[in-house]
């Protein structure tokens, strides 16, 4: 399985979806693609033919404004037909801009309001424990999302319950709604913060498939936080690390350039 090719297909879907709908948040969707690719194509125990499989692993995209990345990944994984992606963020479409679990199979939770996902994941991880189900729960939060106080309520709590079946992945792309993440609220030293809350912390390049995979596979007795350094807009040269692509969709010309780069 060529993860690079899969990730490219997902990125192509994302730029097409965002261009067609004039939807924003292209950059935030692109930064998380490689993480989703490894999770969905190498790590998670899931069955696209049976999305409510009892012992499935669960994935929560807490940064719900990156929804196009999850929809595109699920389509790539055959949870539903790719034609559904054409109804993203448009009149009469089926996929709202922020995630709705009723909208498509494989979407575990509705999200878009920030700071909910890790707590939801804790609930699922606890349920797995009491049901003697050895499935895992994976939650992706944005770095800007860590501004939300509720995230820290959850960060404080998960290690207290020794939830070794829970993994938090921070998509650390360094840009948020109004500027650079560490200028809005300085997150650093992020690793030390998480360590001091008793998480097992791994810092990786969030675009390196083998680093992502080995971080996800690492055994741990505590909940695991993966700080994934990523690039906003990854894969499309003119979007990479550009703040304006937090809230922008490509026009037709820009779309063609992006698709050419993703060939």
């Amino acid at each position, binding site marked *: 399985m060529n993860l690079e090719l899969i990730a490219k297909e997902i990125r192509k879907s994302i730029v097409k979806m965002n261009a067609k709908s004039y939807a924003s948040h292209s950059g935030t969707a692109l930064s998380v693609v490689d993480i989703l690719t490894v999770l969905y194509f190498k790590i998670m125990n899931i069955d696209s033919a049976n999305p409510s499989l009892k012992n499935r692993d669960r994935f929560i995209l807490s940064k719900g404004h990156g929804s196009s990345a999850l929809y595109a990944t699920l389509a790539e994984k055959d949870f539903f037909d790719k034609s559904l992606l054409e109804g993203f963020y448009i009149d009469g479409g089926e996929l709202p801009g922020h995630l709705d679990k009723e909208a498509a199979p494989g979407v*575990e939770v*509705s999200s878009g*309001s920030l700071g909910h996902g890790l707590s939801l994941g*804790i*609930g*699922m991880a606890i*349920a797995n424990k009491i049901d003697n189900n050895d499935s895992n729960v994976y939650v992706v939060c944005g770095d800007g999302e860590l501004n939300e106080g*509720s995230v820290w*309520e959850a960060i404080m709590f998960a290690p207290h319950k020794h939830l070794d079946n829970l993994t938090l992945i921070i998509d650390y792309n360094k840009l948020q709604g109004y500027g650079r993440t560490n200028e809005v609220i300085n997150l650093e030293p992020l690793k030390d913060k998480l360590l001091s809350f008793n998480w097992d912390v791994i810092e990786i390049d969030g675009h390196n498939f083998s680093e992502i995979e080995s971080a996800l596979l690492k055994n741990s007795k505590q909940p695991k936080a993966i700080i994934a350094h990523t690039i906003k807009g990854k894969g499309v040269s003119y979007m990479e690390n550009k703040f304006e692509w937090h809230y922008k969709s490509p026009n037709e010309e820009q779309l063609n350039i992006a698709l050419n780069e993703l060939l």
Partner: protein
Amino acid sequence: MRNTFVKTLVKLAETDSRIFVITPDLGFSVLEEFEEKYPDRFLNVGIAEANAVSIAAGLALSGKIVYVYSIIPFVIMRPFEQIRVDVAYMNTNVRLVGVGAGVTYGPAGATHHAIEDIALMRALPNMTVFAPSDPYEVERITEESINYQGPIYFRLPKKGEPIISNSKNEIRLGKANYIKKNIESEIAILFTSNASDLALDVEDKLLKEGYCSDLVSMHTIKPFDHAALAEILKTKKHIFTIEEHNVIGGLGSVVSEYIAESIYNPVFKRFALPDEYSHYVGSQSYIRDKFGLTAQNITTTILELL
């Protein structure tokens, strides 16, 4: 009523392993029995209500039936947005159990009063709003809540409210609970939650003045028993609502909204707390008195309207 609630839940949890209780560090001396019997299904998440509600939703998405217990402002107002998205929007089997309806926590101050809760909860799609008047209602609806699909808000008083229902068996979620019914009466008094003592007292005072009235506990504010209300409007000339909630958005609003769009034109008045926070220091009865929410005042006003 909170004790009735916990006792009922402990009993139900014995045979239903889906039942789970979460507290954001409240319920000391109330929840212990549940915690001792089912430690795996009890969680104190600390003073972190947003986390409590979202964890509850995560558990519910994994098949659990989760009761989140705290004082009303903390369980429903602090994490309102978590309730909106993770509980109401996702339609999860989370039960928000709030204690201290109205000004039950009188001298504790307005941070602990619950005068806006019915309005907030009934505005949420999918949310069921249960505001019981007596322990029978609590027991029956707690039992019924186990297999009920979707979220429920429980508005519980805190004191030892007496049993006023005629029969436990006929209490159903979404159905008006008749405490007194009299074909001859031209007055109906509808009340909810911890206004039951006021309602009973008013009914008694009116009787002494020669007027008999129907007395109905509207324990479910949403879905509201519109059929019962339509029947009342058909047969009574005077309708009154009594509640310990802001006059905006509670039982009185539900009834007036229905009347406004109906063909009926009864004499109608809402008795509730005024649209203001209490700066009075004192017990529930003291604050009620300061705001004029007393059986005597209500009776006098009704007599003027008859």
